């Protein structure tokens, strides 16, 4: 198992892709802290699943866009599960609003969670890890919208492309200190967040036709890629962003 003995904090892990990552991490031997902001019971269910695999698990409520929340979250995990080895910055929100209608508040809330939140969680984790002389690993969860235009995402897409630059720049500063940082850009993954597409027989075939492999992905498929980046099997990989989209972007 590739993550045996590691402690991982996964943000936004109560459902969707984050849940898939948590499950794979448990199967790969990691103890998992499941962050959530709203879905406490769902987070507990994921934790129970992880414990069922013989791993330790905890849930931790925090808004990743609030520094005091994030600092308290990292402290809590550090105290209860031990020093964090792997941070997966998965928490994110997506709304669809035409550019001409987008408000200041919508821009600010979305960029606060999707971009500043990943920066903030990374900084709090890296400060703690480097202060204690520990190595670490961060995996950012972006989106294919880093490289692809979809309607009504003038606020969302820049956060995801921004994560690539954040990944590169944090990698440049943190890799020499022993913390690798990479970014995974999922395509269409079958989750609650994409139910509005997955459950629309009038929309889905047209979208699947754009995906070379002709299907949506499963959250655990993202989990397996993240597990690779979080493991020592990728010990020479840092600053990279990879699309996990069945062949959608770039053609």
């Amino acid at each position, binding site marked *: *198992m*590739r993550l*045996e003995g590691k402690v991982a904090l996964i943000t936004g892990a109560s459902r969707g892709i984050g849940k898939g990552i948590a499950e794979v991490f448990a*199967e*790969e031997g990691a103890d998992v802290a499941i962050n959530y902001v709203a879905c406490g019971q769902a987070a507990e269910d994921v934790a129970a699943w992880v414990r069922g695999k013989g791993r330790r698990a905890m849930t931790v409520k925090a808004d990743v866009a609030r520094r005091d929340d994030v600092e308290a979250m990292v402290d809590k995990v550090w105290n209860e599960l031990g020093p964090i080895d792997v941070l997966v910055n998965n928490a994110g929100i997506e709304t669809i609003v035409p550019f001409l209608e987008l408000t200041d508040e919508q821009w600010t809330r979305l960029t606060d969670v999707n971009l500043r939140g990943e920066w903030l969680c990374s900084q709090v984790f890296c400060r703690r890890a480097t202060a204690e002389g520990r190595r670490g690993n961060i995996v950012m969860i972006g989106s294919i919208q880093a490289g692809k235009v979809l309607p009504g995402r003038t606020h969302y897409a820049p956060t995801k492309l921004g994560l690539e630059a954040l*990944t*590169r720049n944090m*990698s*440049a500063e943190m*890799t*020499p200190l022993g913390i*690798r940082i990479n970014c995974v850009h999922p*395509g269409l993954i079958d989750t609650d967040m994409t139910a509005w597409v997955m459950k629309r027989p009038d929309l889905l075939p047209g979208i699947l036709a754009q*995906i*070379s*492999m*002709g299907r949506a*992905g*499963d959250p655990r*498929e*993202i989990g*397996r*890629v993240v*597990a*690779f980046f979080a493991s020592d*099997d*990728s*010990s*020479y*990989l*840092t*600053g*990279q962003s*990879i*699309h*996990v*989209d*069945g*062949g959608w972007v*770039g*053609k």
Partner: protein
Amino acid sequence: MSSPAPWFRLDGKVALVTGGYGGIGGVVSRGLAEMGARIAVAGHDGEKAAAFAKVLQELGADVLGAAFDVLSVADTERMVDQVANHFGRLDILVNCVGLNREEKAGEVTEAGFDQVLDVNLKGAIFQAQAAARHMIRQGTGGKQVHIGSVRTLLALRGRGYAAYCAAKGGLAILCKQLAAEWGPHQINVNVVAPTFVQTQQVAHMLADPVFYNALVARIPLGRIASVDDVKNAVLFFVSSASDFITGQTLYLDGGITATQ
């Protein structure tokens, strides 16, 4: 490596590794065998292929050594067919064939340019095509990994890399196109693009302390890639862990491309 998760196992799969006894290919072949695959080790030197196949056989693997001329499309097809016939199927291609011939841009020769493009780029499409024909006919998908280079993305100042950069740059978009065309057949085509790897091929460059120190100083991870780094990335791309990744180039470079 500790015991891998089940989705990394390759039991029942047949893998062809071209350049399969070389510095990178040899370690990749061994890694594939450890994951349970049956292997064909192919290269231009039949004796070396057979000798390396014997080494892996002694470790308990089911291995075939095969000779082929990457510069001949007909011979490439013949070799790929031979491998598929021998094992009864073909699931994985790892193309580790590569060659560099340095010529400064003002002095590039037609022969030199053609040789580098033919081995690195033309060789890749016709290996890919011959392998894909079997994968498509079988109807059970497939995995192709081509070894690229950071020269897919980064030029190299002060050296004669025009042909090599053109070839490796071409390889990335070639594989993206192959992924687009063969995605419906569930064939994943990806590129692992390392920086300098500790192999014989670049030993003469790494032996120059000025070059070596300047190179390592630019790598955030502070070291050259090992062949195991490449092997682990290849094993990821041929496993079911990467079933939803195709047409991608992964730079295995200690952070260089991200900081240039």
